[in-house]
C-alpha cells in the first residue's frame, strides 16, 4: 500500500500508544509488587536504590560536619572531649529536634570563644531556647552569644531585651544571659509541644536514622569493595543494586526449586522453615541473624581501630581525661575572668571619659557665652531658649526636653496671636468724616451761589458797587464767578455784570462745624469708629 498522502487536517491522539504503555507499566508494576510480596519486600528496586543513595548522602554530609567540629575541638586543645561532644550533639538533636547539622556549627562557634566544653554546652542549650523564642536561626543566636561573651553586644539588639543602649553597654555577659533566659526560657519545650515541633522532631529523628543506615551502608560497600574511601560510591551502589536484583531473582528461582521438593512441600515450603513476623510476614530470623552478625563485626572493627588508651585501661584513660578536662575548664575560667576584667576596665574608661567631658565643659566658650547671655537682660522667651541651648550642650536630656516643650509652647502662642490679629477687620480712616464735611460745605456754598430771583428783572444801567475783599487770608472757599440779581446783594445792580464772591471761613468756625457735624452724626446713629490697636489705619 502506498503512503503518498497529504494530511490536510490531523489531530494528535496517541491514545493507543499511551494506553499500551500505561497498561504495560501497570502490569509490570503489579508483577513486581507480587514478586516483592512473595519475598516480604515492599520497595521496588528503584526505591531501594534511591533510599540507599539518600541515606549515604545524608551520612556523608553529617560526617563532613562532624569532622569539621572534631578538628576545631582538637585545635582548641579539647581533643579529650571529642567523643563526649559527639555524643552530646547526638543526644541533643534527638531531645530538641534541632538537626545536628545546625547544632555543630553553633557549638563550634561557642567553643571557639569560651574554650570551655561545659560553658559551651550550657550556652548552646540557652541558644536553642532563644532561637525557638525569637525565631532567629540557631547559628545566628550562637554567633551573637559568642560575640556577647567577648563584649561585642551589637548583635543583641534584634532580641528586644528591653534595655537601653546605656544599660546594654553597662551590663555584663552574666546579666545579659539572665535577661535572655528570663525572656526565652522554656521556649524550646513549648515549641516541642506544638504539632509543628513534634513533626520537626520526628523528621529530625528520621534524618538521624537515615544517617545511621547510610553510615553502615557505606561501611558495607567499603567492606565489599575492599577500598578505603567512598569516591566511587555511586558506581558501586549501582553495581550493588544490580547485584541485589540478580540475587533476589536467583533466590526466587531457588525457592521455587526447593518448594518443589517432595519433602518440603508437606511442611509448607522453605518459608515454613523460617520464623515469620506475625504482622508483616517477613522472615525475622534471618534478619536477626544478619543484624547480629553486622553488629558484632562493627564492634570488632571499632575495637581494632580505636584501642582504648595504649594499655592504660579504661580507668587510666578516664583519669587522664578528667585531668585534661579540669585543666581546660581552669583555662576557660581564667579566660572568662580576664574577659570580665577587661569589660570592667572598658566600662570604667567610658565612665571616666564622660566625667572628663563634663569637666571640659567649664572651658567651653560656647557655654560661657550662653551663661553670660543668661546673666544679662533678656526676655522670658529668650531666656528659655538660652537655657535650652545650654541643656543641650551639657547633655542634660530631661531639662532639655522640658525646655524644648516650653519653647515650642511659646512659639505656638505667638503663632496663635498672629493668626488672631490677621483675622481682625481693617481699621477706618479717622479723617474720613472731615472730607465729607468739607464736601457738604462746598455743596451749600454752591447752592447759595446758584440761587436766582423769582421776578423778572428790568434791565437798568447798573451801578455795581465793588465789594472789597473781606478776608484774604485763612481757610476760605471761593464760590466762583456767577450772576446775581437785585434781591440778593445790594440795592440793585446791572444784570449781566460779573460779580466775584469770595467766602472766607474762619478755621475755628470750620472746626466747630466739623465737630458739630460729627456730633450730629453720632447722635443720629452714625458712629465714627477709630481703632488704634495696631497703631495704623486701614489703607
Amino acid at each position, binding site marked *: 500500500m502506498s503512503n503518498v498522502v497529504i494530511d490536510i487536517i490531523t489531530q494528535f491522539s496517541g491514545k493507543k*500508544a499511551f494506553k499500551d504503555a500505561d497498561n504495560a507499566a501497570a502490569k509490570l508494576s503489579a508483577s513486581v509488587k507480587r514478586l516483592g510480596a512473595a519475598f516480604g519486600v515492599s520497595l521496588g528496586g528503584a526505591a531501594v536504590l534511591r533510599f540507599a543513595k539518600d541515606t549515604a548522602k545524608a551520612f556523608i554530609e553529617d560526617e563532613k560536619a562532624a569532622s569539621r567540629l572534631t578538628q576545631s575541638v582538637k585545635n582548641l586543645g579539647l581533643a579529650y572531649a571529642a567523643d563526649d561532644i559527639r555524643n552530646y550533639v547526638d543526644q541533643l538533636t534527638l531531645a530538641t529536634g534541632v538537626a545536628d547539622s545546625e547544632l555543630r556549627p553553633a557549638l563550634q562557634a561557642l567553643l571557639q570563644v569560651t574554650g570551655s566544653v561545659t560553658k559551651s554546652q550550657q550556652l548552646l542549650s540557652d541558644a536553642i531556647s532563644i532561637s525557638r523564642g525569637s525565631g532567629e536561626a540557631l547559628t545566628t543566636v550562637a554567633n551573637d552569644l559568642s560575640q556577647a561573651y567577648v563584649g561585642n553586644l551589637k548583635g543583641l539588639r534584634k532580641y528586644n531585651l528591653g534595655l537601653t543602649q546605656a544599660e546594654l553597654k553597662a551590663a555584663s555577659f552574666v546579666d545579659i544571659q539572665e535577661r535572655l533566659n528570663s525572656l526565652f526560657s522554656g521556649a524550646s519545650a513549648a515549641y516541642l509541644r506544638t504539632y509543628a515541633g513534634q513533626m520537626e522532631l520526628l523528621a529530625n529523628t528520621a534524618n538521624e536514622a537515615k544517617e545511621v543506615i547510610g553510615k553502615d551502608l557505606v561501611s558495607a560497600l567499603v567492606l565489599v569493595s575492599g577500598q578505603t574511601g567512598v569516591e566511587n560510591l555511586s558506581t558501586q551502589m549501582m553495581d550493588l543494586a544490580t547485584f541485589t536484583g540478580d540475587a533476589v531473582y536467583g533466590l526466587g528461582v531457588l525457592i521455587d526449586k526447593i518448594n518443589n521438593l517432595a519433602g518440603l512441600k508437606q511442611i509448607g515450603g522453605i518459608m515454613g522453615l523460617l520464623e515469620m513476623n506475625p504482622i508483616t510476614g517477613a522472615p525475622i530470623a534471618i534478619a536477626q541473624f544478619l543484624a547480629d552478625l553486622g553488629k558484632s563485626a562493627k564492634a570488632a572493627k571499632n575495637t581494632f581501630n580505636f584501642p582504648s588508651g595504649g594499655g592504660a585501661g579504661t580507668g587510666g584513660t578516664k583519669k587522664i581525661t578528667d585531668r585534661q578536662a579540669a585543666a581546660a575548664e581552669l583555662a576557660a575560667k581564667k579566660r572568662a575572668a580576664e574577659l570580665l576584667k577587661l569589660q570592667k576596665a572598658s566600662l570604667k574608661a567610658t565612665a571616666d571619659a564622660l566625667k572628663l567631658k563634663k569637666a571640659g565643659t567649664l572651658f567651653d566658650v560656647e557655654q560661657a557665652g550662653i551663661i553670660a547671655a543668661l546673666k544679662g537682660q533678656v526676655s522670658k522667651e529668650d531666656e528659655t531658649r538660652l537655657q535650652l541651648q545650654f541643656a543641650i550642650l551639657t547633655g542634660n536630656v530631661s531639662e532639655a526636653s522640658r525646655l524644648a516643650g516650653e519653647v515650642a509652647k511659646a512659639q505656638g502662642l505667638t503663632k496663635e496671636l498672629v493668626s488672631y490679629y490677621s483675622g481682625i477687620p481693617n481699621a477706618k480712616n479717622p479723617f474720613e468724616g472731615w472730607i465729607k464735611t468739607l464736601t457738604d460745605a462746598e455743596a451749600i456754598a454752591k447752592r447759595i451761589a446758584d440761587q436766582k430771583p423769582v421776578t423778572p428783572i428790568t434791565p437798568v444801567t447798573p451801578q455795581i458797587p465793588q465789594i472789597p475783599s473781606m478776608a484774604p487770608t485763612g481757610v476760605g472757599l471761593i464760590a466762583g464767578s456767577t450772576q446775581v440779581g437785585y434781591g440778593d446783594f445790594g440795592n440793585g445792580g446791572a444784570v449781566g455784570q460779573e460779580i466775584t464772591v469770595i467766602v472766607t471761613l474762619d478755621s475755628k468756625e470750620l472746626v466747630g462745624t466739623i465737630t458739630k457735624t460729627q456730633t450730629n452724626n453720632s447722635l443720629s446713629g452714625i458712629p465714627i469708629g477709630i481703632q488704634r490697636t495696631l497703631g495704623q489705619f486701614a489703607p
Partner: protein
Amino acid sequence: MPTEVKGVIELRKALRAYAPDLEKEMRKEIYDIVKPVVSQAKGYVQSEIMGLRTGWIRSNKRLKKITRGTSAFRKGVFPFYNPTEVKAGIKFSDKISKSNRAGFVSVFKIENKSRAGAIYEIAGRRDNGKAQDWVGPKGPSSHKFSHSQNPDAGQHFINAISNSGTMKGEGPRRGRLIYRAWNENQGRANAAVFKAIDKATARFNSRATIVDLKREAA
C-alpha cells in the same frame, strides 16, 4: 451555554450526533475546496512517458490485479503504469485514519492510492534524481539496490519520469502529482479548510446556545 468542542475529531462526532446537516455541509464545503487541487493533480498524470524503455506503461488494457504475468517485472512486484488507474487513485478522503507511530490521526487528506501513481509521484526523490546503486540480479537481496540486468535501468527510468513531470514541494511533501498540485495551490485550500471547520464550529455552538436558551425558557 456554548458547547466546547475539543479537536476536529470531537467536532465531527458532535456534529454527526447532534447536527448531521451541519456535518454534511462541512464535508461538502471542504470537498469543494479540495476538489480543484485533486483535479489539478489528476491533470498531471501523463498518458505517455517519453523515453521510457521498460514497457512500464500499459494503458491499452485494464489490469485488475498485478500478478507475475501482468507485472512489468518477472517476480511480479513492480506494478504497471495505467494512467486511468493512477487518476482514479487520486482522491480526497475524509475518513479518519488510524494513529501513526507519532500518535497523529488524519482527518481530511488527499491520497494518491495507486501503486503506480505513488511510483510516478516520488521516483528519484530520495537521492534528488539519482537512481539506486546497481548490484545486478545476483547481488545481495535488498530493496536498497537495483537488481536489473541493465545497470542503467534505474537511472533511465527516473530520467524519463523526471522529463515527463516536474517535482515540486519540500522534503517529504515533494512530488509530481498531488504534492505538486498542493504546492502550487500555495496553501489557499488549507486555509479555506480551516475556515470551513471554524465556521461549522461556530454554527454548532450558536445552535447549542439557542437550544439551551429554549430549555431555560421552558
